[in-house]
């Protein structure tokens, strides 16, 4: 698949943007896993759309200005990026952290988005203070976290021995940036829950049936906060269904976006 990557200057940040495919524009906001630019999911989307994948500040090759510390900051940078690229009335897909970013963006500029697909998004908290909505990926061991994230943990593995020092450094940096944005409040913005009713775009929530990071009940409760949102599950998948079961995820996403692409 032919993809091209460039940089766009937004204020004091350099944002990495990967584009692939042809057709109407579609924005894919990657998860913290940052493997969205490759694989069957993006290839499937690229058959119908020009898929635009921006790396959030501090992720991939995007720079991270000192002052950016919240997912709210990421959302504003991404909105400025769409301004710069002159993309309006566009469908957005966001997964996990990317889903949170997409939800933040859509509360700020609701009319900018034609469709919203949120795949196992984080970003809100429902439970009482001492109950966890989202598994604590920093308190648990990496082996336990992998088991919660992936239905088949083999699919989540990375062979660092086959990676260059630069690639390993980028992976480490992605993890550090995730902590910078999501350490406290843990994986959520207490305000977001009260703003989600501003979203006007038809919205689809997709949830991996075996997501151990944030369960299906959490997903359901999240979807209820956006008026008219649909909720579907993906079999044989954990927290990243688009990476773990791209075929099934694509089928649902294609059906939902059909009206947007044609």
């Amino acid at each position, binding site marked *: 698949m032919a993809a091209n990557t460039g940089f766009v200057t937004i204020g004091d940040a350099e944002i990495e943007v990967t584009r692939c495919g042809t057709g109407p524009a579609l924005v894919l906001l990657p998860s913290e896993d940052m493997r969205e630019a490759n694989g069957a999911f993006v290839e499937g989307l690229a058959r119908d759309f020009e898929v635009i994948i921006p790396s959030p500040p501090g992720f991939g090759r995007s720079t991270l200005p000192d002052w950016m510390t919240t997912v709210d900051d990421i959302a504003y940078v991404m909105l400025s990026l769409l301004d710069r690229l002159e993309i309006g009335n566009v469908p957005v897909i966001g997964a996990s952290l990317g889903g949170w970013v997409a939800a933040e963006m859509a509360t700020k500029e609701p009319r900018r988005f034609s469709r919203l697909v949120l795949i196992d998004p984080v970003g809100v908290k429902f439970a009482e203070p001492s109950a966890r909505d989202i598994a604590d990926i*920093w*308190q*648990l*061991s*990496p082996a336990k976290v992998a088991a919660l994230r992936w239905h088949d943990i083999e699919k989540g593995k990375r062979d*660092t*021995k086959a990676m260059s*020092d630069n690639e*390993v*450094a980028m992976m*480490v*940096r992605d*993890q*550090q*940036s*995730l*902590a*910078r944005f999501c*350490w*406290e409040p843990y994986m959520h913005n207490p305000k977001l829950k009260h703003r989600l009713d501003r979203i006007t775009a038809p919205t689809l929530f997709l949830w991996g049936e075996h997501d151990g990071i944030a369960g299906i009940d959490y997903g359901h409760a999240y979807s209820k906060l956006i008026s008219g949102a649909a909720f579907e599950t993906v079999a044989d998948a954990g927290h990243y269904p688009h990476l773990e079961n791209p075929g099934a995820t694509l089928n649902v996403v294609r059906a939902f976006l059909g009206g947007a692409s044609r």
Partner: protein
Amino acid sequence: MRAWHFTEMPYPHYPADEPFTRINLPNKHFDPKIGADLYNRYLDEYMIADELGLDIMLNEHHQTPSCIDTCAPLSAAILARQTRNARICVLGNPIGHRNDPIRVAEEMAMIDCISRGRLECGFVRGVPYEIYAANTNPTETGERLWDGVDLVVKAWQAVDAPFNYEGKFWHRRSINVWPRPYQTPHPQIWITGSSDIETTKRVAERGYVFANFLLPHEKVKSLFDAYRANFVERGLPGGGGVAYMPLVHVAESEAEAVKGAEELRWYLTAPRSEPHLRNPPGYAPINANVAMIRQAEKGGGRAARDSSIDQLRDQGILMCGTPDMVVKQIKRFYDLVGGFDHLLMMDHAGFMDHQRTVKAMTLFAREVYPQIKDLPRTQPVRDARTAAAE
């Protein structure tokens, strides 16, 4: 050379069948009656150190039986009143984890006044697993340490009028610390460091004492050299000096000293922490993490916990033996690292009882200390670049 008595105030009496992990060992295993005895015993030993002519050092950790001094300012306040001569070093205040640095400035100023100017005020970034107890964002602890230190110093020095502060981490409309510290302009500041040369230079630039703990002499030398060289480059005179902490045990025979050293070694071997809690994201620099991943691919490295008594003694992490042997080990270390000014002695750990602790401390004070007291204060050194320019 000044010598300092130090214990982490351990609570070693958790059940033998419980894995001892920092942060997560349930506190049902803490018996307050045993704890009460331990606190009072450890404070008594600090008072004995004072009577023996030693200085005293305190620290704090959280959520761990390896150290039940969870609030160094509290123990320092008690000892400020109960000791007479010892200098009292809090090493240190985890300022980045304290949500109110001005409160720390007040606590330290008060202790300095009660002790009539015997406080040495240390600040630390905090060990990695401490992040999980404090919840501080691990990507910000370095920045918070320095912002916090600068704010405390400013609060101590701004004596003419209240000032406001609106920084990245803290906001105050009116800062006006009563009391002022007893020492003018303020107590000597100490900062710890174990790897980062840039931090070391920063400590030197400000004339603070630089301290490190339980490291092999090659590593200590590289850090001390960076500290001392920076004085010359910045044109600063003298400076705060450097401090080093080994495990120390003195006894009448070598065999007895090794027994004591084995008890001290508890500190290196008993407290465990889960690997990921030792490396929260953003605490260590990216290149250090890449190196760790590469090391893990090869099967990992050797930790101090796996070293023998002889290996530890050779590295200078442990100093033990008869008084004359320990004098020799201190002088050898002094020569290997280019000199140091403060011997911070972890001379108690784990299950070591009161009798052995006091016996070793007494022997040190009477027979070792007089032989090292006059080791010359270390001086700034010229590094190659400065020397070439002259």
